[in-house]
């Protein structure tokens, strides 16, 4: 069976194994790095695209403070004018972080929302990604007309059945995103505004 062990061949064997394995992994890593980056970019593109109107050009990710913590956003512009923003907004849900992508148009309305990641309870809070009634109400929602609170708290948002905490968190995430876009100042010339400083002025 196996070779008799002595210090020399043990060290040699372990060392060679580690070396060969690391080399193999480094090689595969180099080969798959490009496809992985591409897949991630594609996924992001999909999530950003889903919450924004069609047409126009999408910017790179830019830094923005949302709900008091560093986050990022993307600008959709057409003919040099900002048309809409996709804002990544993170809040604490029922089971942990709830991360949304919120599309806000230049006139301050919500275009659409989507969930990037969540840890809500399957079948209850997790319905925020499947419940059609709940998802539909965010589409083209005008915060000037509707009060962004769940009905239990005196607002206009229909909560997911038996998942008020998730629904509240979701609503807060959207509100934070809208506030962050507002904080950028005059939305139509948003490109010239430095978001972070504006946020501090607001506060």
């Amino acid at each position, binding site marked *: 069976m*196996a070779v008799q*062990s002595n210090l020399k061949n043990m060290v040699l064997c*372990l060392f060679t194994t580690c070396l060969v*394995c690391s080399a193999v992994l480094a090689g595969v890593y180099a080969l798959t790095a490009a496809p*992985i980056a591409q897949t991630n970019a594609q996924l992001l593109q999909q999530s950003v695209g889903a919450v924004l109107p069609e047409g126009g050009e999408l910017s790179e990710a830019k830094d923005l403070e949302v709900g008091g913590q560093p986050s990022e956003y993307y600008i959709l512009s057409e003919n040099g004018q900002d048309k809409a923003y996709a804002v990544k907004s993170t809040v604490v849900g029922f089971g942990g972080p709830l991360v949304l992508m919120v599309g806000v148009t230049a006139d301050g309305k919500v275009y659409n929302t989507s969930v990037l990641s969540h840890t809500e*309870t399957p079948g209850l809070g997790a319905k925020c990604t499947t419940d059609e009634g709940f998802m539909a109400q965010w589409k083209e929602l005008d915060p000037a007309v509707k009060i962004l609170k769940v009905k239990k708290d005196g607002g206009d948002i229909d909560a997911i059945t038996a998942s008020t905490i998730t629904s509240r968190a979701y609503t807060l995430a959207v509100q934070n995103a809208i506030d962050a876009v507002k904080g950028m100042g005059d939305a139509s010339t948003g490109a010239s505004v430095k978001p972070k400083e504006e946020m501090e002025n607001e506060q």
Partner: protein
Amino acid sequence: MNSKLQLITKGFVKDNPTFVLLLGMCPTLATTTSAINGLSMGLATLFVLVLSNMAISAIAPVVPDKVHIPVYIVVIATFVTLLQFLMQAYTPGIYATLGLFIPLIVVNCIVLGRAEAFASKHSIGDSALDGLGVGLGFTLSLTVLGAVREILGSLSIFGWKIPGTGDGMLAFVMAPGAFICLGYLMVLFNKYLAKK
């Protein structure tokens, strides 16, 4: 020829890794929230099992006895990491769902167990077949458990919703349902084996 076939089929019932040998319980319970998830986890483990079995059977004759466990673990970890890269690149959705349990294949007792008990003593070809057999058995049990939990928990099967049904019993998708379902499946399995 017959013995080769036996290498593949023994994992299904007689030496089923989940129901008989009780190995790899963590991924079995954690990832079987639906039939698809169970199937994917099974296939991921199968991939690592076959490749690590082959590699270990090839290097076993030159590995000194006292360091064979660390060497095997490094080899297994290499294939697991390789799988992580491939999944990140080509099946990001499944990778996100299975999450932590992909890197944890490294410490799945099935993989190291087969390396120790079989691959280190047999030829590369037989080791590959053994990995395939055990992996298929594991995949089968995970898929069955996933399917049962999906039917009870969300009244759908392989993502296809049974028409005209409601929400299902949520507990079966969540943690308690995993334990209870596996417990009852084992009971059925025991009854079946006792009858034979």
